[in-house]
């Protein structure tokens, strides 16, 4: 046996610092909770050493072996943690893209917007995350209620609850608009598919009516007429608001470009433009007001069961859009 080449490495000289919490402290591995079933190596008798020293050497060898095994286990754990970390980071990125994660770090969004610096927006993001969870729950409950033997009165309370939940969202948005209206307009709070289909910071009411119509069950002639009128009124209101927004667009451009470009001092123009931008908050407010009025009006023309079915269809429609966005985000990228 060549003792000189054997490495005795006591644990405290392993040089591994700050192991990740998940895998416990290195000291935990010092407990004899690891494999220890092998028999010690058989020593050749060497007349240079007496029995006591032989025993000590054997014990040392054993300790070293165990230490190596522990080290191996520790490294294995580290590798696993590294993989897990990568997975978590990916999930985080996905959730962040969908705008549902309240950033706790130094990240900025696509537009260079740092969520953590605007408390109003951070609050909204959290509240909206809860709102979506609640919405999914309510949709599921509504589905069960419609399948079950439920009284009309109970159904009407489901309908009221569902409508009020949407109105809650509009209130939340009103507060967020005051914090940063462009956050709402940019759709960073929505999933990508929702944002693609959006109009002035939210769903387009006339589009919604088209989605709902086939799912309301059979309509009376009067109801059909009312719905058709509502669709038209909605469209007209939307067009008027869109045109107003276009005008704001024009005015803003003119205001910023006012006076000579390249002359240096443009502070007055910036200040004037700031005033114009405030109109944006009113536009989002009016758009949400239109959404609310449309929902109210359509519910006035329907009986409880029809309204409940409508709400269910709505809930599921938005759920599908969110799922679509999630699938889109995590689809395998095609190589060029």
């Amino acid at each position, binding site marked *: 046996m060549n003792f000189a080449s054997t490495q005795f490495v006591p644990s405290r000289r392993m040089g591994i610092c700050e192991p990740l919490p998940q895998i416990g402290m290195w000291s935990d591995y010092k407990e004899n909770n690891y494999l220890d079933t092998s028999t010690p190596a058989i020593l050749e008798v060497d007349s240079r050493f007496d029995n006591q020293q032989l025993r000590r050497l054997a014990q040392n060898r054993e300790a070293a072996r165990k230490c190596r095994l522990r080290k191996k286990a520790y490294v294995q754990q580290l590798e696993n943690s590294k993989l897990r970390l990568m997975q978590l980071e990916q999930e985080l990125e996905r959730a962040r893209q969908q705008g549902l994660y309240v950033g706790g770090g130094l990240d900025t969004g696509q537009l260079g917007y740092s969520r953590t610096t605007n408390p109003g927006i951070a609050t909204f993001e959290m509240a909206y995350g809860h709102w979506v969870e609640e919405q999914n729950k309510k949709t599921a409950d509504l589905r069960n209620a419609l399948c079950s033997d439920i009284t009309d009165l109970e159904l009407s309370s489901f309908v009221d609850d569902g409508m009020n939940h949407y109105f809650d969202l509009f209130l939340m948005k009103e507060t967020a608009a005051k914090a940063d209206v462009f956050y709402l307009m940019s759709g960073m709070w929505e999933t990508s598919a929702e944002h693609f289909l959006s109009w002035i910071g939210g769903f387009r009411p006339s589009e919604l009516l088209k989605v709902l119509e086939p799912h309301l069950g059979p309509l009376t002639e009067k109801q059909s007429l009312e719905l058709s009128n509502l669709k038209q009124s909605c469209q*007209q209101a939307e*067009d*008027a608001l869109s045109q*107003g927004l276009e005008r704001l667009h024009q*005015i803003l451009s003119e205001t910023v470009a006012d006076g000579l470009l390249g002359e240096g001092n443009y502070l007055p123009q910036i200040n004037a433009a700031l005033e114009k931008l405030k109109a944006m908050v009113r*536009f989002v407010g*009016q758009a949400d007001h239109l959404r609310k*009025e449309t929902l109210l*009006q359509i519910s006035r023309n329907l009986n409880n069961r029809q309204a409940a079915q409508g709400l269910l269809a709505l809930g599921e429609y938005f759920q599908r859009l969110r799922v679509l966005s999630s699938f889109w985000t995590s689809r395998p990228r095609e190589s060029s």
Partner: protein
Amino acid sequence: MHEPILYGNLLLQQKPPTLRNPNLNPNPNNVKGIKENASSLYDFSDLKNMVKDNAVIVFGKKGCCMSHVIKRLLQALGVNPAVYEVDEVDENEVVIELEGIRAGDGKQCSMQFPAVFIGGRWFGGLERIIASHITGELTPLLKQAGALWL
């Protein structure tokens, strides 16, 4: 698309219109600084007549996009609303005048721009216009005021 009737154009004789339509700038004291479209033929008390004489009139701040929205919506319904653009400096006086016209309404909320008068009576702002349009109340009201003939 019809252009809304602007009082500035009808009632004042002045230089050819600039890019932005000339404003009616009544000057009750006749001592304020000389403005481009001077010729103060009217003071704000004439607003009362304007409200009475027009089936629909929209008072909005100059360059306001919300009154533009109201204008567009009414035009889509086939109405040709009168539009009065208020200069920033005249805002307060106009508000006082309009609230006077509206007095006796019983309602307490303060006047805001844009403000719509239908059939000589105060109707509301953009929110009320949108809400009443969605519920279907607006059109019969406009017909009643003679703003619509269908």
